[in-house]
């Protein structure tokens, strides 16, 4: 990390900022190839950024697990349908 920062401090800081502000787009595969490569390379020479990206990645993965449904949802569809049946038929209702 330090060698890279000392040799090219301006580039290191640019890529550090890029990684911090674009980590989500990087993880979502939404960066262009040049920025993707810069973030990738930076995380190899900057342990704090490597940890940062890893934490965001694990956070996103954990959020995906919240999608599992809850049992109290049962019956919502039936109640919606009951309400719909109180609606007057639409013009071409069969």
């Amino acid at each position, binding site marked *: 990390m330090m060698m890279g920062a000392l040799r090219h401090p301006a580039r290191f800081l640019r890529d550090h900022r890029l990684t911090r502000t674009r980590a989500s787009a990087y993880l979502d595969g939404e960066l262009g190839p040049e920025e993707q490569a810069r973030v990738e390379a930076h995380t190899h020479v900057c342990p704090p950024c490597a940890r940062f990206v890893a934490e965001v990645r694990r956070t996103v993965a954990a959020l995906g697990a919240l999608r599992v449904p809850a049992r109290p949802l049962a019956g919502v569809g039936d109640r919606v349908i009951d309400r719909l049946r109180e609606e007057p038929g639409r013009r071409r209702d*069969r």
Partner: protein
Amino acid sequence: MSEQQPSSADDGALVARAAAGDRLAFEALVRRHADRLYGVVLRLVGDRHEAEEVTQEAFLRAWRGIDSFKGDSRFFAWLYRIGVNEANRRTAGRRAPVASLDEQFVDPADTRPQPDLRLEQDDLRRALEHAVKGLRPEQRAPLVLRDIEGLSTAEAAAILELGEAVFKSRLHRARLRVRDAVRDYLPEDPGR
């Protein structure tokens, strides 16, 4: 509750029939999407009763307006947009949902026997739910649609009627806030 999104091709035939006035076809769409829409709306409004009202209202509006559905997006994305707009209308000015979601989201598939691991997972889940609930609405909605519901950036941004750049910026800020709140509960990264 379906765990997978039905394909837009599956919906297409039902939508066409519903648009022609076939109420039974629309009821099939309700059965297919109601639980999932309710789940999204619940995360946005934070109250089960209100979430059900919003869900009902969204379907009623969809039924009344299905003639205007152009088919240029998936049906559930169009439906989500109606639901999100209704949720936003009701929560305008509120800072955060009013009720705890913790007890409402149970993972029935999680049957792992290790109590310590289960405890850690429960802690993480509670921390995540709390963190999501505490987000500002304009950050919460992108995160719910993209990271919890698993929609694409383009689809979620369209539902929220946001440009993709704005959407991505809000999503990133939301993820960082959640990460700050749950980092102590995150599992170790085996790759690091």
